[in-house]
């Protein structure tokens, strides 16, 4: 079918479950919505280096140090990949980064919680990356081609990240009393913030409805959160750790676990800047940017000088 109008063609591609590509026409709001979501995702990967990076220097064995380094390197790689994918929407990495540094753009609020013990590194892999995978598997079917393809690649690495986190928890849960307590404490602190990662309830979510219509988002916040809870309860049982929720129980009728109310006030507070690490995370990124400026300037000077001398040589 040939469409005379751009909107009609766009709608038909979405309807047919095909992908919108960078050169296709798209509604401006669709583009802006994607820039927001993809840059936020990229920022989360970059800021996400910090809480785990906090433990690379203190990893308990050389094997763990190598694994954690490799994982944090992956996060930076995901950031780079996602910025590049977002750049296909006509926005530069510098612009996106600048929005992060001036506090205009958000990143996953979970990274504003501190990593206090080694078990937190396990909990982040198991829970935070586990939740990210649930979300990202769904995003492999997102309607924007470059984003969907990025997700396929990223999901593969994330599943390795989750497994390494779970393995850390397994070793701790089978270890000494102090290690077991460390693992339980990490689960207690990370459980609720992880459930918040899926965002507000569907009824409260400002961006969700339009995103679903455009098939940027494929499943709702509540559906994804439920999926995560259902799969994680069994994993916690296997570890012999208790999920910190008295209301958690199997609901035969729904075929899902019921769980207790999420503290949305805490969520809102941390999103707005009131978490323990909000200031430190942004400050770390600003410092890296500011102190790296002379390095970037030097690279530009070198490139300028040498492109000139190359031209001279040819002449």
């Amino acid at each position, binding site marked *: 079918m040939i469409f005379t109008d751009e909107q009609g063609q766009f709608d038909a591609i979405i309807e047919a479950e095909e992908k919108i590509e960078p050169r296709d026409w798209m509604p401006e709001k669709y583009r802006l919505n994607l820039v927001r979501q993809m840059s936020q995702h990229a920022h989360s990967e970059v800021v996400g280096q910090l809480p785990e990076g906090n433990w*690379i220097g203190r990893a308990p064995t050389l094997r763990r140090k*190598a694994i954690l380094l490799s994982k944090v390197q992956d996060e930076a790689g995901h950031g780079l990949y996602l910025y590049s994918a977002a750049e296909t929407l006509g926005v530069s990495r510098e612009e996106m980064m600048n929005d992060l540094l001036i506090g205009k753009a958000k990143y996953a609020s979970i990274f504003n919680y501190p990593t206090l013990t080694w078990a937190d590194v396990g909990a982040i892999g198991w829970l935070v990356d586990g939740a990210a995978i649930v979300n990202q598997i769904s995003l492999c079917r997102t309607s924007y081609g470059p984003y969907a393809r990025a997700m396929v690649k990223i999901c593969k690495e994330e599943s390795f990240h989750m497994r390494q986190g779970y393995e850390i928890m397994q070793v701790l849960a089978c270890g000494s009393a102090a290690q077991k307590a460390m693992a339980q404490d990490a689960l207690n602190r990370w459980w609720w913030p992880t459930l918040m990662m899926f965002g507000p309830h569907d009824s409260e979510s400002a961006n969700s409805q339009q995103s679903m219509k455009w098939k940027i988002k494929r499943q709702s916040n509540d559906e994804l959160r439920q999926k995560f809870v259902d799969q994680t309860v069994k994993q916690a049982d296997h570890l012999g750790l208790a999920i910190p929720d008295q209301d958690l129980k199997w609901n035969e009728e729904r075929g899902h676990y019921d769980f207790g109310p999420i503290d949305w006030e805490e969520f809102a507070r941390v999103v707005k800047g009131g978490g323990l690490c909000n200031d430190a995370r942004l400050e770390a990124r600003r410092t890296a940017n500011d102190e790296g400026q002379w390095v970037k300037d*030097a690279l530009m000077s070198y490139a300028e000088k040498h492109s000139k001398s190359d031209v001279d040589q040819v002449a």
Partner: protein
Amino acid sequence: MNKNHYRYVLRLGDNALILGQRMTEWCGHSPLLEEDIAMANCALDHVGRARLLLSYAAELEGEGRSEDDLAFVRSDREFENFLLCELPIGDYAFTMARQYLLDTYHYHLFTELVSSSDETLSAIAQKAIKETTYHMDRSRDWVLRLGDGSEESHERMQVALEGMWNYTEELFERDPVDVQMIAEAIGPDPEWLHSKWQADINATIKKATLSVPEKKWSLSGGRNGLHTEAMGHLLSEMQHLQRTYPGLSW
């Protein structure tokens, strides 16, 4: 146990470990996202190399210790790395200048160790030389770009070289451990390495429009367990968990 053989391998392992530990400090804090990735990648190579060498050192020692025992429960007086490896990371010019000096040293060292009479060491060198060739390409490139970049970066790179120059002679000292390794065709003569190293370094420094610093003193001691004040702090961070909870599995 051949104590000198053990110490020779241990020193190689300690250099890889301590330098690798320093490099990880840039994770998430580099000037560019590409550098976060590159630095983590190179640090990972160093940690991987440290694991191979320390495991082998432990095997040569024959007292049932593991790579982790050597990394996490020795005191600073028992570490035998070069002082240059343990110096704090400084700015990006200092970090990349140090990488370049040590990458070039390792490039020539591992090139020789490939034909070591010690087959295990030779096998480790065969793996390491591939990584080191790439590391040296990268760090040399940084010395050139910062040296011949802006006025500020030129100045910073020169200051960085001056600041570490007194530590470079330690790389080429020869003690009874080296003498025995040369005699058994296990390791190369440090003096020979010195001439190869110096030629490369001089050429790069010149190309980067920098000047070769004048050596005022030779600061050394690391190979005999006498370290800078920075070392204790590095170890207190690195060994934190193993010291707090001795003897557990992680």
